Each structure stands twice: as C-alpha cells, then as structure tokens.
C-alpha cells in the first residue's frame, strides 16, 4: 500500500487562485518532499521539509508538515497556467528510498 496519499486526486482552478494539495502518510519520516511533473516529463523536486520543521516557503510555494497527524499540505499561491502539472509527495523514512504517492493533477485555467 502507498505510504503517501494525495488529496484531491484532481483540482481545477482559475489563474490567480490558490491551490492546496494534501498528503497523508502512515509511518514516521525523516523528511517529506514535493515534486512536480509536467506532461511527458520527469519529476522535478520542489521543496523538502524535515520532520522537525513545521512550515517552509519557496517563492509561491508554502509547505506545512504536521507529524502528529502524519500529514502535509502544499499551497501554491496566485496560480498561473504554467503551474498546470501533477504534484506528488514523497516520504523519506530511515532507508535509501523515497516512497511516492499517487499524485494530484492540477489544472489552472487562464
């Protein structure tokens, strides 16, 4: 079963609106990462938040982590059409591996 589950599976918004995606996981983690995937391309790393951090910002991205609820959220503010992509969370536990969720498909309409 998946360690990370994103919610919602799909999200459609207008340009300028904010987009929020959520990720839940099952076991204790070292860090949690968010990735973006444009159609036909590989995943691109966006942001990493460690287990002792609660919030992190990068440009228009804001990530929160609640280890007590085993959940994280990714907020994209002032969305643009170019933000249209799939977004994945990935959890790093005490191994060499990341475990990816099934992703949220974001569509931003001009």
């Amino acid at each position, binding site marked *: 079963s998946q360690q990370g589950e994103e919610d919602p599976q799909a999200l459609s918004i207008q340009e300028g609106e904010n987009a929020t995606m959520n990720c839940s996981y099952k076991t204790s983690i070292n*860090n949690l990462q968010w990735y973006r995937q444009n159609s036909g391309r590989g995943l691109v790393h966006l942001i990493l938040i460690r287990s002792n951090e609660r919030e992190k910002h990068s440009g228009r991205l804001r990530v929160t982590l609640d280890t007590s609820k085993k959940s994280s959220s990714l907020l994209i503010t002032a969305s643009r059409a170019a933000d249209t992509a799939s977004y994945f969370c990935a959890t790093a536990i005490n191994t*060499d591996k990341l475990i990816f969720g099934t992703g949220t498909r974001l569509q931003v309409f001009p």
Partner: protein
Amino acid sequence: DAGITQSPRHKVTETGTPVTLRCHQTENHRYMYWYRQDPGHGLRLIHYSYGVKDTDKGEVSDGYSVSRSKTEDFLLTLESATSSQTSVYFCAISGPKGEPQHFGDGTRLSIL
C-alpha cells in the same frame, strides 16, 4: 538541470523479447533508481543502487534485473518482456540517502 540521460526514449517490442534500458548520469551521484509509472499507481520503485555493483530490490522487482558496473551507468533489463511491463520507466539519481532525487525524462515502453 541534473545530467541524466535515459535511452531509448521510446521502444516497442514483442512479448518474450529481452529489453535493456539505460540511465546515464554526469553528476557522480552515489544513488541511482529505476521506477515505473502507471495510471493509478504513481511511481513504484523497481530497483536501486547505492554504489558500483551494489543494488537492492524495490517494491516491484519481479521480472526485472539491474546492473551498475560504473558510477555513471545503471541498466534495467527485462529478461523476457511481458505485456504487464508496458509502462513509462524513470531513472533518478541522488546524493545522500533520503535527499532530493533528480529524474530523467523517462522511457515509454510498449510490449505487444
């Protein structure tokens, strides 16, 4: 962008044939990974390597083998391809354990 090249980018082959996919990196990273991506399943780890000649299985390793004889190259082999192995295959690399991974642009493999 991290220097990762996957080859071929597309391949169509028949059931029962052997297939080898190549991942080449120019970053001298220790870790290399092979994933497959299928609708509804996200990315699933097939095999990974933590050094030359050091490999381990992932979540969906049955039917696949890997080899890493040089730091820069990680090969994924389907010894006898089956239709269930039709998928998009991604290679990724990373430095330290658990740190961000950098992905290639994938190989679309169709097995008829």
